[in-house]
Structures are given as structure tokens and as C-alpha cells.
């Protein structure tokens, strides 16, 4: 492509269109936006100076995306209605395509314009609903509306592939997909323009982070030292390229930050809340060092007002995180792409995991301290819902604004057949974050502080501390069953004696019949089971027995009552006992034994029959089940405690499964 060179219509300076398909170029000297038409150049007006955002990108930087080389030819800076700016970089690909590379809060999103025959099916801006899918976008990815807003063209540089009009405002909707997919509906014209793409890392763009990392580090880490316009006292901005609001540490004034200039907004109550983690403290999470730059107290109201604290953490490369303290419980909170979470009814799903709704209320900002990346105000309220799956908590915050000013915005660029919106338009955004429970002592360790108050309640996402016992219980039960089966299989049960005795009537009720058996051999380390069988029917027989080793005189005594009763009572038959009874004895030393039995029975006047059987190495189901019972006692106690723990967890929720 042969560069098209001309003079700026505003200042006469040299301007150059290096890319054949670019529409405008920004004059390096006077910031005029110069558009090339069919016959002559057109001056579209002057753009503001670019705000330093510490971006690692620059016009002229080359890279490649999915095998296609590109060069960043231009940059536009757009203003957000809630304050702050974001950058859009324009990538001219060697295959003739244009890519839109958006950069906001350290994240990058590359998108490409889609030309679709069905674009007219896209709903008008005011019909889009936050959190709802946009069915008109074809393809397998389901995009949901993450943000509806108004963008204002502020600064620009280089060559840009559309007719950028300085100061122009237009509606847009940012859409988010489940796996980092990103899309934008640009309502600067109707039907809206659709851009789809992905959230990417610099690595994905073929741009080595090391190219600009040192420069970016130098720019960002250096705090800016300023003076409070209210009291004149010194204050530092730790994230000068991101901060929109800051409080003065000397007079507690809330100040607006605009490109390093401070403006007094409001005097805050200085001693209202004191953060337990001092501003400026540093801690490492996941190998990344964060600095506490802001502190905020928020509240919700149910039967009374509940307060919690949020500490804003900042790392120049990674952006923002939060530490949240509620009832002395702590959570480390990371932002999530809104499309990665789907919520319906009383549950939300993230990464295939289902979270339960715990709380849904209006959260209000009560107190602020330090720096914030948005125009925070005391009293600012958002709709907040928490979903729990210990140790994690998903939080959704929805902020909406219905603005008359917004409603008056043109829904399309004037020169492209714009029309006025007919009714008030709602703007706002939906933010999802993932909180992970952190124990207070870990917070102390990470931040190098001590004596944090300990919680006395159960947090919504506090993990049950003894859950690991259940897994151990399962392992132990499997091991116990395997051991039990192995011992039963390998145990050599054998019968060592059996005999049936015919007993003559006794001389009297107190008389006994004594029997001596023939000798038999007993093996060592095997239990002994003696079984007696008698023909008893609604009566009893009682045998006192001794196993006697003739050689040593060792006597092992035992007793066996055999009784069997049955009958009919109130028309129902019943029975108790049986004609057989047995007793288990511990193993005896190996040797030759005789059995001595001394028998009496209730109907002593009648003869009786007594069968005796002696076995060794008999499997004991009782011992096996006793072992299983013992193994289950502690888990059972833990389960009872967990029930109480879970009830306490849900006691402050309107969605408790226990109510």
C-alpha cells in the first residue's frame, strides 16, 4: 500500500494515511481528526489529549493473532458515563481485516466486526436487559448483556477505521460469553454494529509482555504526590492512572480525580470506621503482590442494618481484587466475566458448579477511604446477590441508571440516519465476582498484621472444617470390609467335637446331671464356639460347662442357657428364644481337652436330650460390625455437629433450607 500523504486542513501539518482502508487520521500536531473523502480531506474537529493509562500498547506496535500479522495503527480513548476512560486500539491485519482491541483495567478484548444479514433483528438499546441473553447473535456461544452504557469519544491518535467524531456520544452494550467470549453492540447507528471476539492476553497477540513491562512498571508503581485542595495536606495516589476518587488522609474529604487534578466533592466523617488492614499494606495472593489502596464500608438492611468492609487491592499488571471482611470472616474476591456465570431462580452455575442463593438485597456504600477506580459516592447503592458453595461465594452486583440525559442521546450517528430514542433508556452493568474464604490467621500472615478479631459466627461460605473425616471414613470402611472379608475367607473354621446325650430325669429340682466328654484336640489362636441344642418347648435347660486340659489343669468355664417359649396373645402368636444356644470363648492353648457339663432343666421329672457341638476358628460377624460401628462413631458425631454448623450458616439468610 502506498501511503497517502496530505496536509492537515486545520494546521497544515503533514498527515499520512499508511493503511489503505483507514477512514481518519489524527494530526500529531493539532489533534484534529482528518477524514479522507472522495475528493478532499475533511476536518472533523479536535480530540482531547490522551489520558495516560499506562497501557503497554502503542501505535505502530506489531503482533499476530491466530497466525495473522497485524499492526496497531490507531488508538481512541472513550469516556465511561460513570467516570474513567478505556482505550480502543485498531489493528490493521495483513489480510485486510480490522480488529478492535479494547483495553480496560488491564484486560484486553479483541473483536472483529460481523456482517450479518439478520442484524435488523437486534433489539433496540432500551429493550436490552442486563443479565439476559441476546438471542439474535448467531452461533453456538450464548452472549448475555453485561453492560449497557454511553461512550463518549475523547482522545485519539493515529489511523482509525471509522469516522470518529470528537465528543460524540453513543449507546453501546457489552456482551459476555461463558468462556471469555466478548461482544459489543455499537448503537451509534441502527441497526447496531456487532463486534465479537475474545478476552485475550498480550501473549495471544504475539506481543511480548517484556517489551513494555519495564516501562509500564516504571510508570505505574510510582505514586503521585499531590496536595488536598481542601486542607492543603499531602496525599499520594498509588494507582494514579486508574484512580477516579480518593479521600484525603488529613481532612477526610472525598476528592474527584481527573488526570492528576483533584476536586473537592464532600467532607466525610473522618473517624467513622478504622480499617483493620492499613492502607498501603501489601500481601501476596497466587504469587502476585497486591497493595491495599482503598477501603469501603457497605451495608444491607433486613431486620436491622448489617455492615461489612471491603479492602481494594491493586496490582499494576493484574488490576483490582478485594478483601472482604464480614463478621470478622474474610474473603479474597476476584472479578469474573459476567457471561461465565448463569443464574436462574435460587441458584447460579459457574465452571459447572452449582451455587445456592444466600442473600439478595440492596447494598449501600456507608464510608470510603483511600483510592477507587470508579466515581464512588457514599450512599451509592447496587442490587447485590450472593450465591454460596463453601469455600466459594459468587456475588452479583447490578447497578442501573435511568437517565433523562441518556434518553436524549441519539441512537445512531446523525450522518447515518440517526433517530431519537422514544423513551428513557436504562444503562448500567452487571458484575460477577468469586470470593474464596480465607482464615483470619492467614490474612494476618499474608498482610503481616496481628490481633485480627476472630469470628464467633459461621460465614455464608465458611468451609466446614471437618469435612475431610467423611472421606477418611469411606476409606476406612472400604479397608475394614476388605480386611473382614479376607480374614473370613482365610480363617479355617473346623468342628472339633459333636455328641448328643440322652439325659434321664433328675432326682429333684435342684439336682444336676454331670457329663464328661471324650478327649478332643484344640488348636491355638482360634476362638471356640460351643453350641447346645435341647428339645425345650416353653421351658428351659441350663448347662454349666468346663473345658479342661488334663495335662495342665487349665479350666475354662462357661454357661449356656437354652430356653424356648411361644404362645398366642391377643390373637397374635409370639415366640422367644430357641432350641439352640451358643457361646464363644477365646482361644485356649493347644492341647487335649475334655468337656465337663453339669446340666439341669426345668421339667426335671422328664428325660431330656442335649446335643453339644464344639467348633474352632469361627468367623465373628459381631466383631466385624462392632468394628464398623466404632469406625462410624466419630463421623456420626461430626455429622451431627455439621448439621448444627449448617443451620448457623443459614440463620441470616432469607433462603435457608432449614426454614
Amino acid at each position, binding site marked *: 500500500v502506498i501511503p497517502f500523504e496530505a496536509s492537515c486542513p486545520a494546521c497544515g501539518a503533514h498527515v499520512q494515511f499508511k493503511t489503505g482502508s483507514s477512514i481518519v487520521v489524527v494530526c500529531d500536531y493539532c489533534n484534529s481528526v482528518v477524514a479522507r473523502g472522495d475528493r478532499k480531506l475533511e476536518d472533523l474537529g479536535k480530540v482531547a489529549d490522551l489520558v495516560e493509562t499506562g497501557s503497554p500498547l502503542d501505535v505502530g506496535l506489531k503482533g499476530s493473532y491466530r497466525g495473522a500479522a497485524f499492526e496497531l495503527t490507531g488508538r481512541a480513548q472513550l469516556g465511561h458515563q460513570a467516570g474513567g476512560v478505556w482505550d480502543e486500539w485498531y489493528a490493521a491485519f495483513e489480510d485486510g481485516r480490522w480488529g478492535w482491541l479494547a483495553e480496560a483495567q488491564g484486560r484486553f478484548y479483541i473483536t472483529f466486526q460481523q456482517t450479518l444479514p439478520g442484524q435488523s433483528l437486534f433489539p433496540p438499546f432500551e429493550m436490552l436487559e442486563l443479565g439476559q441473553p441476546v438471542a439474535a447473535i448467531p452461533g453456538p456461544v450464548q452472549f448475555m448483556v453485561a453492560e449497557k452504557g454511553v461512550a463518549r469519544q475523547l482522545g485519539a491518535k493515529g489511523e482509525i477505521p471509522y469516522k470518529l467524531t470528537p465528543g460524540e456520544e453513543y449507546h453501546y452494550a457489552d456482551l459476555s460469553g461463558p468462556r471469555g467470549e466478548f461482544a459489543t453492540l455499537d448503537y451509534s447507528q441502527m441497526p447496531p454494529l456487532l463486534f465479537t471476539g475474545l478476552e485475550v492476553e498480550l501473549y495471544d497477540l504475539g506481543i511480548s509482555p517484556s517489551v513494555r513491562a519495564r516501562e509500564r512498571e516504571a510508570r505505574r508503581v510510582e505514586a503521585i504526590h499531590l496536595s488536598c485542595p481542601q486542607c492543603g495536606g499531602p496525599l499520594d495516589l498509588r494507582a494514579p492512572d486508574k484512580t477516579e476518587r480518593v479521600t484525603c488522609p488529613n481532612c477526610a474529604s472525598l476528592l474527584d480525580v481527573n488526570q492528576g487534578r483533584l476536586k473537592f466533592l464532600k467532607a466525610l466523617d473522618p473517624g467513622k470506621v478504622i480499617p483493620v488492614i492499613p492502607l498501603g499494606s501489601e500481601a501476596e495472593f497466587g504469587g502476585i503482590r497486591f497493595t491495599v489502596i482503598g477501603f469501603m464500608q457497605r451495608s444491607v438492611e433486613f431486620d436491622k442494618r448489617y455492615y461489612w468492609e471491603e479492602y481494594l487491592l491493586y496490582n499494576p499488571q493484574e488490576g483490582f481484587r478485594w478483601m472482604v471482611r464480614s463478621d470478622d470472616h474474610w474473603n479474597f474476591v476476584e472479578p469474573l466475566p459476567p457471561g461465565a456465570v448463569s443464574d436462574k431462580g435460587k441458584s447460579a452455575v459457574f465452571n459447572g458448579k452449582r451455587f445456592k442463593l444466600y442473600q439478595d438485597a440492596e447494598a449501600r456504600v456507608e464510608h470510603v477511604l483511600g483510592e477507587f477506580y470508579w466515581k464512588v459516592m457514599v450512599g451509592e447503592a447496587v442490587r447485590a446477590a450472593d450465591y454460596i458453595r463453601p469455600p466459594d461465594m459468587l456475588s452479583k452486583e447490578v447497578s442501573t441508571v435511568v437517565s433523562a440525559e441518556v434518553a436524549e442521546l441519539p441512537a445512531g450517528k446523525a450522518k447515518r440516519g440517526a433517530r431519537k430514542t422514544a423513551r428513557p433508556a436504562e444503562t448500567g452493568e452487571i458484575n460477577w465476582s468469586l470470593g474464596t474464604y480465607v482464615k483470619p490467621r492467614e490474612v494476618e500472615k499474608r498482610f503481616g498484621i496481628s490481633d485480627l478479631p476472630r469470628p464467633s459466627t459461621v460465614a455464608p461460605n465458611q468451609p466446614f472444617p471437618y469435612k475431610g473425616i467423611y472421606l477418611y*471414613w469411606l476409606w476406612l470402611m472400604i479397608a475394614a470390609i476388605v480386611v473382614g472379608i479376607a480374614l473370613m475367607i482365610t480363617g479355617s473354621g473346623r468342628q472339633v467335637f459333636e455328641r448328643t446325650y440322652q439325659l434321664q430325669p433328675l432326682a429333684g429340682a435342684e439336682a444336676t446331671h454331670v457329663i464328661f466328654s471324650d478327649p478332643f484336640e484344640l488348636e*491355638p489362636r482360634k*476362638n471356640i464356639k460351643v453350641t447346645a441344642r435341647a428339645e425345650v418347648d416353653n421351658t428351659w435347660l441350663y448347662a454349666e*460347662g468346663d473345658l479342661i486340659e488334663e495335662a495342665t489343669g487349665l*479350666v475354662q468355664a462357661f454357661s449356656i442357657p437354652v430356653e424356648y417359649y411361644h404362645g398366642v396373645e391377643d390373637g397374635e402368636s409370639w415366640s422367644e428364644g430357641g432350641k439352640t444356644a451358643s457361646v464363644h470363648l477365646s482361644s485356649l492353648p493347644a492341647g487335649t481337652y475334655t468337656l465337663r457339663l453339669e446340666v439341669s432343666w426345668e421339667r426335671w421329672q422328664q428325660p431330656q436330650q442335649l446335643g453339644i457341638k464344639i467348633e474352632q476358628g469361627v468367623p465373628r460377624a459381631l466383631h466385624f460390625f462392632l468394628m464398623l460401628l466404632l469406625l462410624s462413631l*466419630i463421623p456420626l458425631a461430626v455429622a451431627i455437629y455439621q448439621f448444627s454448623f449448617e443451620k448457623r450458616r443459614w440463620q441470616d439468610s432469607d433462603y435457608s433450607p432449614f426454614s
Partner: protein
Amino acid sequence: MLAKIYLLVGIIIIALYGLVTLTGREFGDTERQIVPADVRHSPGGYRSFHFWHSGYRGGK
């Protein structure tokens, strides 16, 4: 911590079960004694301890 203690206790319980089974131990055994042969062989000189002192009063 409790989980690890439980795991240890559980292993001990299974080990005890194995030991009891392999050595043929039973719980609640009646007493064992040495009765010399001359005592056992003398007429009327030997009775089972429990029977002598308690007898049996079974019945429904």
C-alpha cells in the same frame, strides 16, 4: 487435624479387629483357672463356680 487423628484411630481399630480375629480373642469370657487333677478327681470336690453359687432361674 481432627481428620488425621480420626484416620489414625480408624487404622488402630481395624488393626485391633485383625489382631482379635487372628488370635481368636473373644470379649466377656468367663474366668479361667487352674484346677489340679486331684481336686477335680475327688468325689464331690469340684463344681463349676457359677453353677454352685447362682444356679439358674430361667423361665418366662
